């Protein structure tokens, strides 16, 4: 709870004192103290689950704090709704855009603050004002387009416009770069500088430490619901920040011996999945996974990984072939594929992995309704399922008072552990793990990694999709990079660096450099950012490109990445991603301090 030494004469735009907020079962914020100076970019960093989003909701009037006070421009305020916050000049740009697809840009922007008298909506005045703001800040929006036609970067600009339209002087940006490609991030930072020069205060929430160090004037670290430190970027390194966020040494998956066996478990050839418009989201993908091998697929979200997994498990129609061992799965439905021995840890556990209102032992059955010990013939074997659930709870350390509790009562980490235990229990030969430690606390993450490693040693083949580069590098035997639905490169996790991986993932090509011997031994965690997009773990993400790699021969033949990517910058991202900022990774201040 240290506070930064603020220059005596600067005005404080926002002062939070002793903010505390409790929810049933958890204390989200405890005794938060932050002072944000006017006209600065103040960053708030912390792991997921540290309480950042709750704090922002309080500041924006969507929640009320149980204790503590807020002052805006020196005056104490009490927000009962976002309208109050807006009136006080606070505007929020959410991480998950708050936009209505079926309405136009104009309608989305003016909602709640429409111009016009007698209840009439003055479209012309609205259009005029929007274009004014758009032109002065270079936001380039078209008011009459339907929102669903817009891409991610455009949507974010609409969000920013929304906020400026309401005369906000204090902007809260919640993970704004999570969905942007590198040059869009640069544009955004440019916009922020302009806004700053107009005296606007910016609160920047992020977990991308390199960006934060680049753009912020002050940084506050939040951990476990409370403020841990407020520092100036000049005084810290990314690694120090990461340690502050996690509160100690960063756990990381270690190297180990290879457990890869020669038998091919999964053989995918020419897999193509098309979107409704006909565009291929998975484009002619082929891959093989051997027994005892973990194949990690690295890629910015929205490049086809989710669809790839869906196609392999049979949730999406696809062309191409999928073989499991010597069985051809191509024409089988999801149930049959699962019965053939595929386990599936879905990306969105609440929507796809669990029946939230059902007890744990029934959730054990989910996905395995046709297998023992859950069933005998057409009947559900309650005793068998219950006993097995107890076993899973024991073996995977699922913290729960009992197996009759509804799944929704468990924390994210324990839910995930249950799912992992369940999927491993069918003795699968192949495990599809999509973001297996997303939104999971550090302890559970370590346990899940352990479980995966043990199973791998016993011969399990794993397809691992993750946005957490540390997880990918630490767990995988081979890494493939996916970009725009295609496999564009292979990497050896023992030698690749997060920057290289990151640049391949974002398609940041660049000047080719020969891979020298010094490169091969480069430390894995140079210039790392910490914490995955939604995860609470301490994985790291690509810090961005800059270190290009030369073209080379076949996959896996060398320590560095395969083909460099074609010149065009930036894939069309549609989801949250883990992009880096090209310039920053080369910044010696950011990289130089690292130690292996």
């Amino acid at each position, binding site marked *: 709870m240290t506070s930064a030494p603020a220059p005596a004469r600067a005005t404080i735009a926002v002062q939070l004192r002793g903010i505390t907020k409790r929810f049933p079962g958890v204390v989200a914020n405890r005794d938060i103290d932050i002072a944000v100076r006017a006209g600065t970019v103040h960053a708030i960093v912390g792991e997921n689950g540290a309480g950042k989003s709750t704090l922002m909701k309080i500041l924006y009037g*969507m929640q009320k704090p149980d204790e503590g006070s807020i002052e805006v421009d020196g005056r104490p305020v009490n927000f009962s709704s976002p309208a109050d916050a807006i009136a006080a000049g606070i505007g929020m740009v959410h991480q998950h855009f708050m936009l209505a697809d079926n309405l136009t840009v104009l*309608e989305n922007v003016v*909602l*709640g603050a429409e111009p016009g008298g007698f209840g*009439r909506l003055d479209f012309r005045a609205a259009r005029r004002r929007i274009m004014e703001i758009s032109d002065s800040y270079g936001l380039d929006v078209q008011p009459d387009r339907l929102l669903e036609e817009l891409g991610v970067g455009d949507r974010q600009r609409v969000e920013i416009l929304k906020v400026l339209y309401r005369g906000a002087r204090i902007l809260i940006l919640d993970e704004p770069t999570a969905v942007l490609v590198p040059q869009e991030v640069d544009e955004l930072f440019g916009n922020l500088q302009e806004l700053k020069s107009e005296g606007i205060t910016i609160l920047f929430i992020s977990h991308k430490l390199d960006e934060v160090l680049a753009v912020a004037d002050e940084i506050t670290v939040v951990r476990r619901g409370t403020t841990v430190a407020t520092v100036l970027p000049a005084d810290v390194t990314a690694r120090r920040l990461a340690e502050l966020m996690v509160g100690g040494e960063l756990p990381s998956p270690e190297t180990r011996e290879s457990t890869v066996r020669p038998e091919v478990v999964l053989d995918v050839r020419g897999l193509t999945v098309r979107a409704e418009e006909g565009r291929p989201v998975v484009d002619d993908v082929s891959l093989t996974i051997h027994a005892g091998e973990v194949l990690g697929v690295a890629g910015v979200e929205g490049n086809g990984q989710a669809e790839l997994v869906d196609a392999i498990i049979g949730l999406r129609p696809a062309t191409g072939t999928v073989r499991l061992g010597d069985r051809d799965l191509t024409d089988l439905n999801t149930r049959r594929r699962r019965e053939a021995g595929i386990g599936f840890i879905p990306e969105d556990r609440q929507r796809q992995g669990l029946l939230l209102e059902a007890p744990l032992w029934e959730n054990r059955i989910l996905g395995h309704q046709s297998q023992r010990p859950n069933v005998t013939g057409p009947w559900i074997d309650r005793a068998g399922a219950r006993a097995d659930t107890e076993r899973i709870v024991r073996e995977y350390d699922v913290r729960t008072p009992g197996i009759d509790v509804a799944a929704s009562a468990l924390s994210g980490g324990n839910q995930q552990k249950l799912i992992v235990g369940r999927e491993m229990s069918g003795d699968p030969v192949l495990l599809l793990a999509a973001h297996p430690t997303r939104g999971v606390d550090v302890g559970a993450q370590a346990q899940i990694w352990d479980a995966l490693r043990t199973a791998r040693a016993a011969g399990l083949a794993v397809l691992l999709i993750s946005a957490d580069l540390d997880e990918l590098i630490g767990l995988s035997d081979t890494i493939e990079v996916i970009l725009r639905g295609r496999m564009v490169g292979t990497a050896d996790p023992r030698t690749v660096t997060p920057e290289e991986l990151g640049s391949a993932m974002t398609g940041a090509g660049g000047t080719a450099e020969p891979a020298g011997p010094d490169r091969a031994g480069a430390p894995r965690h140079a210039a790392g950012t910490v914490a995955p997009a939604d995860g609470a773990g301490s994985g790291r993400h690509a810090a961005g490109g800059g270190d290009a790699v030369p073209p080379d021969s076949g996959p896996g033949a060398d320590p560095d990445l395969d083909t460099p990517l074609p010149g065009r910058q930036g894939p069309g991202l549609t989801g949250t991603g883990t992009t880096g900022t090209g310039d920053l990774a080369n910044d010696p201040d950011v990289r130089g301090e690292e130690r292996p």
Partner: protein
Amino acid sequence: MTATGLVESMTQASTAAGRRRGIRWPLWLLGIAGMLVLVSIVRLITGANDITSSGTTGAALRLAVPIGVAGLGGLWSERSGVVNIGLEGQLILGTWFGAWGAYEFGPWWGVIVGIIGGALGGLVLAIATVTFGVDHIVAGVAITILGGGITRFLSALIFVNTPGGGVTQSPSLPRISTVTLPGSGALRTLEEKHWFVVSDIAGILGGLITQVSLLTIVAVLLVPATYLLLWRTKFGLRLRSCGEAPGAAETLGVNVYRMKYTAVILSGGFAGLGGAFLSLVATNIYREGQTNGRGYIGLAAMIFGNWMPGGLALGAGIFGYTDALQLRSGGQSVHALLLLLAIVLGLLAIWSLYRGRRLRAATSVAVAAGALIWFLTTDTVPDEFVGFAPHLTTLLVLALAAQRLRPPAADGKPYRRGEAG
């Protein structure tokens, strides 16, 4: 409505492709003209002059109103994100309260009391779904049950003691005045010449302007009024945002709960108006069972209209037309329409084949053939079948039109404050 994943996946397939917000104007006019010609041809072949007579059209307009107004109620509600299956119950309340109000105080008072009755039903639905978060359909069904119960009880209490009234019906009610616009006589003469197309148009127009109840005019005006209110005012934008992205609306200071309440109460009011219309204009008596599923047909009209007032009016018109045939014991007219159905489906089959959609072509041809055979082998359609013509039409329309739909994005999803983000 869940198991909506199925519906969602199907509508998404089409919304991606059908990005235009509707079909273009010229295409619409062409379609209407084409239909007119076809109908005229069928009339001349079959001699069933009633299908475009002013009598039928007038009745069609009269019967389209309760369906359309109920549909508007559904639209208002669903645009704010609440599915109102209780429309039927609110309609029932409207019929009863409209009758009672008219009996006690006069016909226009009856309308007002009917609206209030329906609105009260809407209020109960709002409390159940918005405040308590009950599943929308479950709450709607409960309201429909309750509506029937309340009206029966009140009838037993009040109408039983009136001359001509009883547990299941009210006494005779005063009427609302009607107007006849000038030109009606001339159109009548034209119509009776039974000329190709001209007489049909005369018949249709004649029905629309002859002896039109004042309440009908009010109801028809509600359609453009709905459009203006929902798409051209602040209130309308905020309401729609609750049905599209309530989380976003809340973050911008829109009071989502209040909007939903307003929309659902209004929705009930509309249904109440429709009910009052049924008991005061379409007939002049309250009778139990009088609504006959029109609340649901109204919802179907709303779906047909893609949640837009214009399309809804068209759908209500179609359903009202079949309803009119049913009421006028139009066995012969429905029989003639069989031929029309066969022709239209035949054309659809050809077009589907041209587009390469063979399954659709095959089913169209099969149904067309069936209709044709039925037409040729009979003289008229039995009354019992005519009785469910509107309902069958509803089914067919929904089955055929279900593809290009774009319901409000958050329709039917229970919303809790603070869910944003």
